[in-house]
């Protein structure tokens, strides 16, 4: 990445402290700034305030689940094309399909494979 370019920003959304800490650890040497939200409602508010370049969104969360949060984000003009990678616990087709229908761009499954996650993020953001 060019030094003069602003660093890309990623919003990590998960209600699990373990998942968030692992995502931070996996991405700590990558050239991205990280912001965090711990439920769907907070994710929508943080995304609107921070305008991230990519969102990593858990599905099962309190207050508002990941699918609903993605639908809310896609209704916002500024976030219609932001890549959203869904982090699902279950990879069954109906779960994945529900994710794509809600507007997510891609998905990874838990337990997170660090190599897969970094590869996907680089595909969308470069770096």
């Amino acid at each position, binding site marked *: 990445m060019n030094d003069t370019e602003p660093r890309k920003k990623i919003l990590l959304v998960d209600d*699990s402290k*373990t998942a968030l*800490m692992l995502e931070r*650890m996996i991405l700590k040497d990558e050239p991205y700034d990280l912001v965090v939200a711990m439920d769907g409602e907070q994710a929508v508010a943080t995304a609107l305030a921070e305008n991230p370049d990519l969102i990593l969104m858990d599905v099962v969360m309190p207050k508002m689940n990941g699918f609903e949060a993605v639908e809310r984000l896609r209704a916002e003009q500024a976030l219609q094309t932001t890549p959203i990678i869904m982090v699902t*616990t279950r990879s*069954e087709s109906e779960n994945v399909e529900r994710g794509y229908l809600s507007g997510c761009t891609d998905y990874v*499954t*838990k337990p*997170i494979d660090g*190599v897969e996650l970094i590869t996907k993020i680089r595909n969308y953001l470069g770096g």
Partner: protein
Amino acid sequence: MSTGHEKKAPAGDGEPSSRLEEQNHELRGQLDELQSRHRELQAELVRLQRHSTTLANLYVASRQLAASADRREVLGAIQDVVCNLIGSEELGIYELDADSRTLKLVAAMGAEAVRSPTVALGDGEIGSAAESGATFLGDGDEPALVACVPLKLDERVIGALAIFRLLPQKPELEAFDRELLELLATQAAAALHRSADRERSPGRVPA
């Protein structure tokens, strides 16, 4: 002025083309070597990234357990670690009642563990793992129990963690999962013991 790009005059009949072919052959050989080295380095990079993820998993599990203060938090952290780092939503955490030689279910995810709320020491795979202090690893395509890890405090078994099923996308436990289970065997036990100590003496500051 020379640009350095002028064509040189041929040195003799047939020589330039054979020399060029030779150079071409040599360069192709070098290219093959470089491509092969590139593939090796890429494979090494992926191996290192996987190793780094394994270390990250171990670090995260350790930190989460160490940061949990009360019993509810510790039990939640163990479940969170198993769910997010190992990949299971069917698990049970048992504590040993030494007097009755019985393992009692104190936390569970999924329906499977609830079917065995108590297990006598030495009974079945869970009871046997807790009695012997050795981790049980299930084999076969769909074992009834994927793993049972005795929770040990200075080699003394104080409970057990049973993993009944892995997530559908995770076919089996891998080497780094087993490392994580070994870490859980001691660190989860220590965290549970600390939380019990705190409950007994709420005002005391841990050493």
